[in-house]
């Protein structure tokens, strides 16, 4: 039965992809100044998280810089290459690919269209015409890990990851290190939703995982799982506990139950890149956004103003300063992996 499901999904996405590609080809404005093509992952611009952030950056550029943008969402991982190519063939000035899943597709298309400029978020394409932007997720996760530990009187906190991939392990490792800095005896429960793309789109399962962690005594759960994160917020509200969101500022989704969000300023990086492109200052190669440039950060707004105290803020700012100074070395899963 499983094979049935897989083959039918495959069929679906191929059909869907071709429709998307056609729509890209059909709706390009004839005379526009600067054309920006944005290719999002399958969780799409409404994931209230990672892709949403990229989309906001592009929309801001549209408003403030007067560029023309076109956004497409990939129905699955096999569609990236053709979606990017459709933009390249239509001579878009800059193609923005969001998410590490797009790495291989960007590499291929960058070689195929050497004059085309690309922006890849979350991976390093190592190609002469690609600007790669990566975030130091472990640093931001370190800060929210410390915040979680400050709010867990019993010393138990949780982590829920989406797909079990190195990127998410990097979040987890930073988070655990941050928690242990505040409370060396802190106990961290950790769960992953799965090993396939479905893991980003399964809120019911995320909710069950979160309920389980809260029942075992976790007081704060940090979730890095795309759309599935919504299930964790539901569980937090149901159990009257706290959760920490990811990528975008998610504090508004369940005010009072979301302690903070680990921001990954994809929107800033996208906007900056477009602005540079417009000003003729676009550079390629790898650019890293860390706590220093506030490319990763924790979110503060009116929704969590009552939750995060002045003392918390002071502690976190001290930690941030120490990371920037190099006094604290946040363990980086990517480096640990390499050493192995």
């Amino acid at each position: 039965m499983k094979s049935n499901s897989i083959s039918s999904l495959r069929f679906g996405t191929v059909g869907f992809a071709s429709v998307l590609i056609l729509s890209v080809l059909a709706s390009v404005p004839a005379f526009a100044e600067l054309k920006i093509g944005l290719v999002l992952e399958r969780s799409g611009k409404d994931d209230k998280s990672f892709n949403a952030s990229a989309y906001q950056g592009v929309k801001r550029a549209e408003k403030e810089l007067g560029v023309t943008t076109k956004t497409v969402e990939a129905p699955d991982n096999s569609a990236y290459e053709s979606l990017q190519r459709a933009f390249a063939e239509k001579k878009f000035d800059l193609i923005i690919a969001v998410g590490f899943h797009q790495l291989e597709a960007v590499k291929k298309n960058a070689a195929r269209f050497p004059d085309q400029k690309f922006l890849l978020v979350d991976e390093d394409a190592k190609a002469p015409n690609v600007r790669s932007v990566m975030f130091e997720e472990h640093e931001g996760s370190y800060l929210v890990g410390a915040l979680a530990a400050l709010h867990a009187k019993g010393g138990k906190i949780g982590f829920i990851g989406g797909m079990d991939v190195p990127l998410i392990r990097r979040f987890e490792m930073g988070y655990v290190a941050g928690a242990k800095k505040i409370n060396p005896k802190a106990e961290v429960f950790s769960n992953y939703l799965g090993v396939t793309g479905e893991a980003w789109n399964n809120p019911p399962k995320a909710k069950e995982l979160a309920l389980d962690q809260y029942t075992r005594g976790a007081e704060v759960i940090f979730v890095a799982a795309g759309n599935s994160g919504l299930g964790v917020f539901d569980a937090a509200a149901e159990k009257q506990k706290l959760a920490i969101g990811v990528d975008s500022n998610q504090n508004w989704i369940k005010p009072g139950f979301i302690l903070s969000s680990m921001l990954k300023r994809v929107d800033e990086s996208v906007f900056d890149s477009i602005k540079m492109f417009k000003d003729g200052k676009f550079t390629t190669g790898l650019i890293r956004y860390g706590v220093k440039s506030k490319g990763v950060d924790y979110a503060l707004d009116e929704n969590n103003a009552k939750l995060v105290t002045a003392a918390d803020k002071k502690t976190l700012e001290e930690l941030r300063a120490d990371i920037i100074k190099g006094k604290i070395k946040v363990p980086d899963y990517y480096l640990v992996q390499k050493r192995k």
Partner: protein
Amino acid sequence: MLEAFFSSWVLPTLRVSTPLIFAALGGLWCERSGVVQIGLEGFMLVGAFFAAVATPYFSNPYLGLFIGGLAGMILSLLYGVTVLKLRANQIVSGTAINLFALGIPPFLSKIWFDSTGSTPPIPSESQFHSAPLVIMVFTVVGSALIYHYSKIGMRLRFAGEHPKALESAGVSVSWKRWQGVMMSGFLSGIAGGTLSTYLSSSFTRNMSAGRGFIALAAVILGKWKPIPTVLACILFGLTEQLQIRLQGVVLWGVEPVPVQWIQILPYLITLLVLAFAVGRSFAPKGLGQIE
């Protein structure tokens, strides 16, 4: 002790199994009437979407769930027309229904909410607490009774087992099959509704995540009988629950068991049960045959 067991094993397992049970019962009725039903996944997806749209609109989860069921049923009418009226191949049509269903939520959510396939969250005051569990129990008991002891159930079964006999008794086989198809659409729609309004609080893209196919596997594992089918769903729910609980557990004092090993459990258990415990599984004799 008993209470802890109940709240940490029994309830979560039943919760996870709820959508599977609704969908599997729908699939059971349809297949028993002689129509192959691989479109459960599609009905679920559409049901989940409409339930998530209707619940906040009417501030009533029961009505939302019902509308989810209706949406599934309306889609099943399309399936009925293609396979019963136009006699198209049932596997191909079922696949087509699943593909069609994939596109419906993004299309409508774009119009209604300017989003691609997600709905606004359902406010907590119009969320379910545990009512779907109760509805599920009634549906199971009702289905089993109708299946074994009523004329409707008997006739529906004969439509799939021995359509000629039913016809010679003066009953319309085609009408019975329409009933089976509509039933599967309605119950799978409800199954989807429980996903979006009970197990979570909004619709997200492709949220059925293969559960329709797992439900179909449960029908086969349960040998096309109601109670065994429900038990098969609970078995799948239990393995999912095991998978959740066993993650990060330290076994034999060494490193935690790698997550990948835990995650193959549901599939492994299904294979083992299918291969060793069940014995031969007989499909309804007239399944997929339309003359």
